[in-house]
């Protein structure tokens, strides 16, 4: 399964004040807050962790049908962080999700999957083809294979990303 989340950094500066009192405490676990306190670039780390949580939550929501505002229950671990990308994992109750985030100067885009091998099957797709099921979850229909394929859509500010797993 797949979930994604894009953050437009300029837009986040207009919409959010992550420095306000209580903001990080309500969203991030104690471990995550410790990382935010100890980094020299808290803004990037905050939105990196946030997009990991959002991308993983989209899978969790699709798997369980549960809709809740549970940022602290999506526990992030960063396994590798370079200047342009980050690999991590998110645990939500008994579920484990793997994440890959592409980092640019003005955006972050995280893709979450349930199987590590799925990272090699991720494709960006055309938003025009998207349909919604009875739960409002997006999918595309491939007539040639007569198959439904789940997709994940994220938009924020200037950016929009629609991703799917290639049908094999």
């Amino acid at each position: 399964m797949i979930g994604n989340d894009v953050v437009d950094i300029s837009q986040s500066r207009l919409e959010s004040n992550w420095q306000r009192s209580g903001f990080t405490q309500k969203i991030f676990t104690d471990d995550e807050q410790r990382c935010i306190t100890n980094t020299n670039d808290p803004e990037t780390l905050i939105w990196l962790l946030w997009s990991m949580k959002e991308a993983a939550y989209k899978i969790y929501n699709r798997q369980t049908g549960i809709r809740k505002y549970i940022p602290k229950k999506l526990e992030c671990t960063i396994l590798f962080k370079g200047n342009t990308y980050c690999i991590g994992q998110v645990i939500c109750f008994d579920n484990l999700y793997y994440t890959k985030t592409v980092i640019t100067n003005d955006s972050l885009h995280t893709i979450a999957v349930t199987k590590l091998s799925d990272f090699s099957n991720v494709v960006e797709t055309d938003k025009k083809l998207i349909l919604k099921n009875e739960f409002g979850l997006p999918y595309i229909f491939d007539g040639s294979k007569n198959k439904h394929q789940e997709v994940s859509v994220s938009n924020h500010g200037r950016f929009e990303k629609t991703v799917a797993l290639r049908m094999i």
Partner: protein
Amino acid sequence: MNKQELIAKLKIIVKPYTTNFEAYDNLTEKTDFINDLNINSANLVDIILDIEEAFGVVIDNADMERMLDVKTSVEIIETKLAAK
């Protein structure tokens, strides 16, 4: 504070985060913050912090999980106010 006054106060709080103004003008108890008002999920935490300040209450994690719509938020605020 009665329920209508409470909803009116909540409506003022959510306004700066709202991007669907038609849904905002027609706000009812059934209104969903994300699906109807098109509020960015990162701003839900701002709404919760604003509610804490405006009503002088503390919203814990268990309550925060359910605060996705007007009805649930009003119920939670009412419970917190009654416990003061």
